[in-house]
């Protein structure tokens, strides 16, 4: 905290700032208009991810507006002295995937990015949150943002997860309980045995989707799992410095008697493979459950929005979702495109083939993930199954590039948002885990993954 004065919001110093091509051009323009430099260029890292094609990345971007936006980033970064991991660079990838894998994301930091899924970095015990472009400009100009203290929420998940149930199911379950707005105004800390047992990749999946219940950020206290993930990463502290930092990082945990504004407990044994049926991430159910009826809604005022949502999805209230045919399978996004996610998919499809009615896109989160997937032979497994392994980017999570789901088609997706038109105009999205998506790729239908594992 640089300054906290009466009548003003706190000026919070930002340790790490990530930028991408979509939410930064207007911020750089602002600096130019004011004739100021970037305050501390070494604390900002840029990559191109939202607009980039996922095939033939070595060729110029075909779509003129996308190319212009990426070109603008290419012009702005050197002009202001900011490191850019451009297309073709071995470190390029989705901004929230590359930060952690490069060791740029470390415990105890304040991290911002002009992207709501910045909460991902909270998995390392950080204060990490998404900001708008005006704030991106503030960080570039002063390395600070103005913030008010958020409310705090503790979500404990105790017990052990069942077979075939993974981090994505935990977070979809939590959001289905809290709704798409249940954590608005809060920073969430995730704790409990089921969270503690997760790998860093899985913890990132959990923190990533905090925003989908309205939370500004989500975090998990760092532990040995965190430290061993960081050790040896490209920009992480090395050798003795690393050991010294680990000692400091060990202190980053909430006091056992800490008070929160709100506390919730869930039992991992109640969590099943989850899937969304509607048009916000709070509209999720266990894959074996029926879609609710209008009468079953907790809040009667939600009926018009609920009906509109189901009409958009082409689904009937009270019907089963199991067995619903899918047309596309998207495995990717900052939620689920890390190496562990790709391994999970590969383990499910090894020796099997995709159903003939589905098209399957596997979009790795970064060049490093892509490289590792190839080194581990996952590409061969995908190829044999009829899956397309593409090049890194945000891709069909938001369809800013060519990777759009056609109108009226159903896509089971490992991404984070099922909003109307999110994956393409009139596209219909089912959010699920990488395992559930892989299972649907094989059967061509929404499937209970527990029958296949």
């Amino acid at each position, binding site marked *: 905290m*640089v*300054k906290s004065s009466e*009548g*003003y*919001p706190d*000026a919070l*110093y930002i340790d790490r700032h990530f930028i991408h091509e*979509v*939410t930064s*051009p*207007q911020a750089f*323009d602002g600096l130019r*208009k*004011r004739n*100021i430099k970037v*305050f501390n260029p070494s604390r900002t890292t840029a990559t191109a991810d*939202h*607009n980039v094609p996922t095939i033939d990345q070595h060729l110029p971007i075909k779509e003129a*507006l996308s190319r*212009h936006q990426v070109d*603008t980033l290419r012009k702005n970064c050197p002009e202001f002295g900011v490191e850019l991991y451009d297309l073709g660079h071995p470190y390029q990838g989705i901004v929230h995937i590359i930060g952690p894998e490069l060791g740029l994301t470390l415990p105890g930091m304040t991290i911002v990015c*002009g*992207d*709501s899924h910045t909460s991902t970095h909270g998995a390392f015990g950080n204060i990490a949150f*998404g*900001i*708008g*472009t*005006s*704030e991106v400009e*503030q960080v570039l*100009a*002063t*390395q*600070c943002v*103005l913030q*008010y203290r958020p409310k705090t929420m503790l979500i404990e998940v105790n017990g052990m997860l069942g077979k075939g149930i993974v981090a994505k199911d935990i977070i979809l379950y939590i959001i289905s309980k809290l709704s*798409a*707005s249940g954590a*608005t*105004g809060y920073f969430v800390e995730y704790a409990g045995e089921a969270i503690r047992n997760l790998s860093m990749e899985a913890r990132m999946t959990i923190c990533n989707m905090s*925003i989908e219940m*309205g939370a*500004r950020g989500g975090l998990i206290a760092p532990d040995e799992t965190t430290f061993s993930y960081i050790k040896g990463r490209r920009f992480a502290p090395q050798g003795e410095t690393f050991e010294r930092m680990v000692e400091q990082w060990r202190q980053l945990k909430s006091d056992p008697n800490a008070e929160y504004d709100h506390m919730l407990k869930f039992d991992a044994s109640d969590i099943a493979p989850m899937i969304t049926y509607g048009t*916000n991430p*709070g509209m999720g159910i266990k894959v074996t459950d029926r879609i609710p009826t209008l009468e079953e809604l907790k809040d009667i005022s*939600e009926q018009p*929005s609920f009906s*509109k949502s189901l009409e958009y999805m082409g689904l009937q209230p009270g019907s089963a979702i199991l067995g619903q045919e899918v047309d596309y399978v998207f495995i990717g996004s900052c939620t689920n495109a890390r190496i562990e996610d790709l391994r999970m998919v590969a383990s499910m499809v090894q020796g099997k083939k995709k159903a003939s009615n589905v098209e399957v896109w596997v979009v790795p989160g970064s060049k490093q993930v892509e490289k590792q997937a190839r080194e581990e032979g996952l590409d061969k497994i995908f190829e044999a199954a009829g899956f397309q392994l593409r090049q890194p980017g945000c891709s069909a999570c*938001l*369809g*800013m590039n060519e990777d759009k789901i056609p*109108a009226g088609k159903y896509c089971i997706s490992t991404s984070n*948002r099922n*909003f*109307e*038109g*999110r994956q393409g*105009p*009139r596209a219909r999205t089912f959010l699920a885990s990488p395992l559930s998506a892989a299972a649907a790729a094989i059967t061509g239908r929404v499937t209970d993954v527990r029958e296949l594992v």
Partner: protein
Amino acid sequence: MAKEKFITLKNQAVPIPNDNIDTDQIIPARFLKATTREGFGENLFRDWRYNSDNTPKADFPLNNGTYDGKILIAGKNFGCGSSREHAAWAIYDYGFRVVIYRFFADIFKNNALNNALLPVQVSDSFLKKIFALIENDATTAITVNLAEQKVVLPDGSEESFDINPYKKTCLLNGYDDIDYLLSLRDEIKHFELTH
């Protein structure tokens, strides 16, 4: 850079009675490719406003000819989802200066405040009253008084709303956060050296 000042506004309103209007509805991702802040109003609520052949959807409130005005009225959790400031730019660029809603998603609210678009949170019952009044008479004028922090309806009923005092000062005077932060640059440099 100085923004338009917001003091008080008496104007008609456009109702969009949905909950959880996410920023992908306000401005779909495929329209985020501009590198300036202007012109996003054209694609505000694009997929709700236009058919796939780009003809206007006749029944959408921005198209049906019934409603006009600088105040946008909707349900709860407005602006959830993506942090895209383009959503606030699009609403402002279209001509709205106030959004009255049950409650706002945090990032959107901040983005609106940074762009002279006033987010006004009111109670469920007051919001229902506004919807009923507009439905009954589309020319109903609503007064939003920032200095006194209240919304006044033609029948004289009113409700006060909360706004952070710092943000209120910024809006009333057209100040920008960055001006304040830039005034702290020496303190920030000192902080960097000592932490």
